């Protein structure tokens, strides 16, 4: 956000705004017919970034419904994710995560020098069931020390936050803990300077399902994030799942009447809060996903940095439903998209 400074100019401006109308008449502004002006003023397709990003590098549509590397072909997937049944019936889930520097395209044509987990921002979604054992083999292939700090229950030596727990470039560390408590969590780098390590892209979603599974639904992972491309501690780009206005061009397709569950995590840096607003619909809110009961039925939800919530809804009508941050500035800087609800016939 930008705070205009009070300059001499702005005083003059206040003084002359009153005469501006007369001036415009003198200056030939009659050519600008007000009706004519309206015609370009309401061409909404003029809004938003120009062009499209390269999806072969990172596809936000695939990210929505991918966890435990389910987007990879089986042979490749086994390099990053393995599960082993344990005597008590729970699973040991093993992950290969690595930190790597990579330029990512966040608005068409704008390349951000990101720090990533496995080459993508947000990092791969890790999903386990309450009571499973999670083992993350972490390699730092980046140029700076990094770590992984998981939210959830774990002993302090697995916290990844203390100076001694930083993993130096080229080194390796194994994080291991039980997946608890159930709910929607996150993971991120906890190396100082913290702000920079997070806003450059080292974060992802850590989802723990309850032992008694939630009702079947179309599940979507959404991370609200931002990018400070000119390093002035202010985001030039806001998005859900990294790419500005992506779902405006490729709407999130859902079925009318089917339960839709959104795992919504706020990882925006610099701005204290972010929000989610859905047009034409309301949703149930399960804050942090740690209780089975909904506390709220709303169409606008505010989340602080690091806060998250599970949202559930069923689309009542076919058609396009806009969703965006209700901070209009964020929306117009890229945090805006569409749901496309379809009936069986359509």
């Amino acid at each position, binding site marked *: *956000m930008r705070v205009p400074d009070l300059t001499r100019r702005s005083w003059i*401006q206040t003084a*002359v705004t009153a005469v501006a109308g007369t*001036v415009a008449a003198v*200056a030939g502004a009659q050519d600008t017919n007000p009706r004519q002006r309206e015609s*370009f003023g309401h061409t909404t397709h003029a809004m938003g970034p*120009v062009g499209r990003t390269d999806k072969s590098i990172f596809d936000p549509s695939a990210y929505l419904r991918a966890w435990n590397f389910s987007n990879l072909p089986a042979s490749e997937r086994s390099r990053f994710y393995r599960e082993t049944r344990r005597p008590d019936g729970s699973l040991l889930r093993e992950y290969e995560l690595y930190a790597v520097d990579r330029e990512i395209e966040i608005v068409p044509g704008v390349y951000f020098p990101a720090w990533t987990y496995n080459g993508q921002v947000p990092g791969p979604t890790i999903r386990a069931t309450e009571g499973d054992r999670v083992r993350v083999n972490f390699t730092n292939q980046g140029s700076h020390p990094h770590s992984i700090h998981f939210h959830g229950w774990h002993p302090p030596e697995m916290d990844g936050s203390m100076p001694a727990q930083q993993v130096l470039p080229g080194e390796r560390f194994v994080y291991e803990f039980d997946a608890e408590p159930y709910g929607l969590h996150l993971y991120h780098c906890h190396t100082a300077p913290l702000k920079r390590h997070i806003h450059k892209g080292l974060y992802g979603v850590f989802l723990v399902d309850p032992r008694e599974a939630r009702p079947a639904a179309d599940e979507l992972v959404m991370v609200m994030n931002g990018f400070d491309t000119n390093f002035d501690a202010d985001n030039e780009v806001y998005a859900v799942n990294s790419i500005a206005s992506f779902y405006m061009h490729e709407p999130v397709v859902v079925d009318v009447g089917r339960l839709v569950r959104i795992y919504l995590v706020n990882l925006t840096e610099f701005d204290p809060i972010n929000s989610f607003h859905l047009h034409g619909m309301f949703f149930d809110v399960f804050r942090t996903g740690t209780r089975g009961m909904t506390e709220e039925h709303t169409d606008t939800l505010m989340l602080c940095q690091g806060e998250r919530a599970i949202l559930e809804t069923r689309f009542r009508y076919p058609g396009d439903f806009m969703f965006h941050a209700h901070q209009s500035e964020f929306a*117009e*800087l890229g945090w805006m998209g569409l749901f496309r609800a379809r009936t069986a016939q359509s």
Partner: protein
Amino acid sequence: MRTDTIVAPPPSRGRMWLMALLPLALLALLLAAILWRGPADMLRGEDYPPVERLTFQRMELGPEGIVATVMNDGPDAVKIAQVQVDEAYWSFTSDGGTDLRHLGRTKLTIPYPWVQGDTHVVRIVTSTGATFEHEIAVAVATPQPNARALGLFTLMGIYVGVLPVAIGLLWFPLVAQLGRRGLEFLLALTVGLLLFLLVDATGEGLQIAGRAPESFQGAVLFAFGALGAYLWLESLGAWLRARRQKAQETSGDGRVLALLVAVGIGLHNFGEGLAIGAAFALGEAALGVLLIVGFTLHNTTEGLAIVAPLGRDRVGTGELARLGLIGGVPTIGGAWLGGLVYSPVWSVLFLGIGAGAIAQVVLQITKQMSRDQPVIRSLASGHVMAGLAAGFVVMYATGMLIG
């Protein structure tokens, strides 16, 4: 000791050319070597981020939205990726492409529904995420370069330059009645006015030089303009005096001086016209109106400055009118240039020329005032100091209207 000196025969023409061109050829080789495998690359290393710089040259507001002319004045190529207006991504088209090389230029048309009288900020995001922005302080439709606009700028020039100077000239009959001390007071007043303009033009010129693309080296351009104008007026004065001596005219100096003052003021007013025209070009038309009112008041005093040196010389109406036109009409040309093909570079150059001309005129007048006395003593007398102060105060007070 023998002092045989062998006088070498003058070198042939071919050898002369060789001597002149050999260093140039070697220099070209050196440049080629630097560009081919330069030490600059070794210094910068492989991943060194490029130095990006974009300058906004012109902003037009119209029914099609905002049209921004942008130049890359940085050393490296710049790729324009996106445009934000008031912190919102907005579509745009470009007529010069979005990849700008050093000194490359493009025109971006942004179909943004700008609001009359509001402030808008246009911001360019490059491929590396660097941002460059320009604020339109008060949005008003930009006049298009058609007959109407030319007429409008002419009218502005007349308001600001021609009429006020002409009104100031009407003090001439009064000047002709004044005694010696009265005349000296008036000349001192003129010097005060001109000194004010000199400081003002220098400040303004250097300020614009700071905003102009660095490649144009605004401060040097300003100094060059000032020095050139100073020397040119000096030689013009000498030529005029020589001509008058030849024609054996007796009433020489006052009229020459008045003409020089008129030329100096004319050059300065050209710069002022540029500033007013440019205010419109940069989408600050509302500021331009305030400028017009201020300059009109301000410039009435310039007419007085032109007639003051005439003293009791007998001057016909025709000559007076000619002096007035020389002082005032350039404002029109300046407004045309500034309004239709504005670039800060022109402003800097012409403000420099105006400053140099004024400096020369100030020296001429003080010389004439002090006659055979040392300059400092004539300046130190009471009525002269009062005149200087009065000139400054008048300019300061009317200058406040310009802001």
